[in-house]
């Protein structure tokens, strides 16, 4: 009994010792940069650290918010996120329902489905670029010469519209396994007697989904949609490596900072995106279940 009473007093010190490396790193490389971002956003900052920066007040914000390219990029990003989140969630759910039964090679098939999710982006991107090559890609060959789906193939990754469609499909293909795994886990916990009861009541497949499945998977559905939306909204790597025709916000920010060397402007974009992120997190906090630990 003594130890339990004593424990309450000494825990704080020990906790701080154990948490020190984590807190130190996160304060230095997440919290401090966050505030540093706000500060930089009020300056004109040369990329060379030896040169002085000049205070310019809200100029970066005024510039960015009146820049039509930024607003276009914002719209494009919202569309990209909505389509890719919607697509990957629906596909993930459909495949999970499809897998939610015993069949031959189920485990192998499940592992293979997740392959696109675990493989590094750089490997996947080379395969896609090769498949969609304008002169010798297999897609042009199959679509044009074999199945005659199109007469004149679009310039895939060299055309803004076809690139946009392709990066959305790429995101759906790459990220649906995450939804699939999450849904499959929760589907397996649903009591099959609920379906049998609904069947006796004469429910159709759609009604069974609406009455039994949907309420049961709701917490997972909300979590999957929220997290994937946040992550895709800030997507950079996949799209940047696939094409230079789709400037979503992550790429717009990256180019502002490291192609046009305008760090102050880039910082002001980061701050605006932070504000958007915080609104989403606060709105989502009550609803998103972080594996039951929230």
């Amino acid at each position, binding site marked *: 009994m003594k130890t*339990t009473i004593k424990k*309450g007093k000494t*825990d704080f010190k*020990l*906790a701080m010792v*154990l948490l020190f*490396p*984590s807190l130190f*790193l*996160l304060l230095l*490389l*997440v919290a*401090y*940069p966050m505030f*540093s971002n706000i500060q*930089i956003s009020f300056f004109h900052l040369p990329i060379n*650290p030896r040169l002085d920066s000049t205070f310019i007040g809200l100029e970066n914000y005024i510039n960015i918010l009146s820049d039509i390219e930024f607003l276009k990029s914002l719209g494009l990003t919202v569309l990209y996120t909505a389509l890719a989140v919607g697509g990957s969630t629906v596909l993930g759910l459909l495949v999970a329902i*499809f897998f939610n039964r015993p*069949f031959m090679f189920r485990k192998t098939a499940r592992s293979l489905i*997740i392959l*696109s*999710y*675990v*493989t*590094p*982006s*750089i*490997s996947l991107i*080379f*395969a896609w*670029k*090769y498949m969609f090559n304008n002169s010798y890609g297999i897609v042009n*060959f199959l679509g044009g010469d074999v199945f005659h789906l199109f007469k004149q193939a679009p310039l895939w990754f060299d055309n803004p519209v076809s690139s946009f469609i392709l990066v959305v499909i790429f995101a759906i*293909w*790459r990220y649906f*396994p*995450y939804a699939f*795994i*999450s849904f499959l886990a929760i589907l397996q916990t649903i009591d099959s007697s609920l379906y049998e009861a609904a069947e006796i009541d004469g429910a159709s497949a759609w009604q069974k989904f609406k009455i039994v499945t949907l309420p049961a998977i709701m917490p997972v559905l909300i979590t999957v949609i929220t*997290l994937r939306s*946040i*992550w895709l909204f*800030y*997507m950079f*790597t996949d799209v940047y*490596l696939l094409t230079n025709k789709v400037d979503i916000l*992550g790429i717009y*920010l*990256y180019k502002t900072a*490291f192609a046009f060397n305008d*760090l102050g402007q*880039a*910082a002001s974009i*980061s701050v605006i*995106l*932070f504000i958007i992120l915080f609104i989403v*997190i606060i709105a989502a906090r009550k609803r998103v279940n972080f594996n*039951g*630990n*929230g």
Partner: protein
Amino acid sequence: MAMASSKKTKMTKKVAFYATLILLMVVTLFPFLIMLMTAFKSSGEAVSTSPTIFPKEWTFQHFQDIFNPVVFPYLIYFKNSLIVALTASVLAVTIGIFGAYALSKLKFMGKTTINASFYTVYMFSGILLVVPLFKIISGLGLYDTRTSLIITMIVQTLPTAIFMLKSYFDTIPDDLEEAAMIDGLNRIQIILYIIIPLSISGIISVFVYSFMVAWNDYLFASIFISNSENFTLPIGLNALFSTPDYVWGRMMAASLVTALPVVIMYAISEHFIKGNLTEGGVKG
């Protein structure tokens, strides 16, 4: 009669099911098939305008090329990636274990706040911090070093590592610890001899997660690294791709070998661990 027709519908259903399954697998795995087959095609065949899926003539030349430092600097990039990913994931797991233990098992003031802020950071994306991080890394004199990447990768994966480890530690009953305390073990000994062995599968999945994130990173490597001696695989391969003399078969062979470590790790952890590897979530 009725029985025969029901048997027939059952059969039709089964055929339809497996047909759908095969279609699904072919569509999702098609890019992997192309990657694999192109790696074995000759350079001429890879750019043929009437391509076949399987090579007409199989060649191992591309695999020999990527492991030949004279032809292709692949091994340098591989080594750099390995150093960064291994160091970062070992450190993230180690630091994470102690942090997660405190958040899971100790009672102290400010715990809820720390917990909440870790969850918030978990949702963050690296792209939001590129500008100040670039300044900080340059300021610390770490520009163009592997250390810059190791540190950033630890920070990128740590919140998730703590969050995943904490949920594993939460399942370990407190009685076990109390019994160990009565036996005279201190907290550190409890972590080493009780908590770690009991959550080894969780620790492995956290390690694999961190390794995957670090192995996959393009963003920070492209900002922090300028000398090709220090290139990791993602930036190194992409830089080669931008030069006019890339060879498709070689790029595909490099892509395959690049994917191999994480796919093997994933397969092993899938086989031995019940836990869910996707908990962490690949952010991209």
